[in-house]
């Protein structure tokens, strides 16, 4: 693949990152390529898992679902041969786990967990997470309010306040 194609594909990803709902036609015109080319690239990006998944960012609180989320600091003992990866895999396969990062610093894994209420999350931590062999300790921080997710400010959007016609 030429350098130029790589750059255009990165541009495509940036456009999708801004707004995933654009049509192939719209994207094609912005990148000055044929719509068929966009379709082909999208397919490649998806099969290469460069585009991993597309999903909306939802303000669940506004939607009336008061789910609870928590950020859990987890200290673990790395294992021979597999390091942190095998333990990480055991943790991220739980559907309650929304995100999992290996961290530098005071703890090893940052785990985001979601549940329908406080009790459910607490139960998950105490019965599932803390009991895995190799997990040394957990510290649970409940989320009180979400201000920004995935680069998007949840509450206020900076609306276009310009006059419609100006010199």
């Amino acid at each position, binding site marked *: 693949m030429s350098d130029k194609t790589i750059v255009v594909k990165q*541009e495509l990803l940036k*456009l999708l990152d801004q*707004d995933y709902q*654009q049509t192939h*036609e*719209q994207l094609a*015109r*912005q990148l*000055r390529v044929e719509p068929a080319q966009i379709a082909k690239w999208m397919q490649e990006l998806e099969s290469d898992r460069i585009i991993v998944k597309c999903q909306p960012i939802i303000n669940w609180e506004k939607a009336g679902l008061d789910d609870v989320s928590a950020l859990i600091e987890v200290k673990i003992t790395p294992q021979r041969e597999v390091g942190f990866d095998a333990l990480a895999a055991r943790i991220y396969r739980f559907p309650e786990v929304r995100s999992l990062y290996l961290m530098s610093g005071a703890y090893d894994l940052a785990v985001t967990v979601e549940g329908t209420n406080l009790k459910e999350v607490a139960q998950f931590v105490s019965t599932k997470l803390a009991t895995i062999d190799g997990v040394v300790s957990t510290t649970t921080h409940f989320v009180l309010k979400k201000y920004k997710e995935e680069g998007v400010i949840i509450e206020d959007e*900076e609306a*276009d306040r*310009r*006059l*419609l*016609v*100006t*010199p």
Partner: protein
Amino acid sequence: MNWSERVSPLVRSIPPSGIRRFFDIVAEMSGVISLGVGEPDFVTPWHIRESCVHGLQRGYTSYTSNYGLLELRQEITQMIETDYGVSYNPKCEALVTVGVSEALDLAMRAILSPGDEVLVPEPCYVSYQACVALAGGVPVSVCCTREHEFRVTVDQLAAALTPRTKALLIGYPNNPTGAVMSREDLAAIAQFAEQHDLIVISDEIYANLTYDGEHTCFASLPGMRDRTILLNGFSKAYAMTGWRIGYALSNEDFIAAMTKIHQFTMLCAPITAQIAAVEALQQGRPSRDRMVAEYDNRRRMMVEGFRNMGLNCFEPKGAFYVFPSIQNTGFTSLEFAEKLLQAEKVALVPGDAFGACGEGYVRCSYASSSKNLTEALDRIGRFVKPLLK
């Protein structure tokens, strides 16, 4: 009592802005995609807004020097020296104004005597003509054409020259055409200015929005520093239109004269906005570069979009406007803009709002999201298609 008769004849003689008239029509409608907006679609980068908030918290609410904060003038002169190699003394050769609009007004009032003529290449920003006239001068239009890529030539200027010609007012990169002037083009103009002892007022507000090649600062041409009143500001490059901060750089005498008017009429530019402008110059380059890259991408898309529709579209090299010709649709600029608005709810500005020689063209701003622009191009394409058969 007919109060309008009591308004000064000079003010009465100046026609209202053509843009204003069109704005009133657009404002009545809903669901309009507007390509009529002459300001960035980005809000001011957060770090710049935040610096203003911080300034307010620390109690920066006073007047500043008439000239503006010295720190800001130092940043401005340093930037101009680094970018264009022209040096100005921040203490007496720089004036911070309430937008370039004020700076332009001050420049005209500082140099013009009644009846002095100013050469104004058109199409141009809507206030050039009015500013000259309000200062007692006589604006003399010089028509720039598509044939010369909307650049002004020495021959055209020479044809408009009279013994009363005192100054030349240029604005490149240009609003509304997006035209730029190369260093060679400007060097010829500089020679002409020298030869006829003209003062040159150069409005370079779009300097940072230059896409192909480098912007040439008029004052950087040999012998032009003292002859030029260089105007620039923060509105376009840093998405700071509502802050109203511009500046003028010139020889000490011109700046002192402009400051004299400024101190009695404006006193100083708002300190809050001046603080934000300091931040813009100190830290704003990365956000500015990001915005410029985005405009450049949209620019290419718009030119291609209009050409694909069958409209003759000049490739703009600066600012954030395209200026396609609509002559082959059979409509005048105003008819085209009005009918497009009614039929497809896309607002753009008739070219004649920027001078009579803008007739036959429309100004489309691409300071709008790519998604809006593609939708607008679809709608315009639908409108234009039956007209071109």
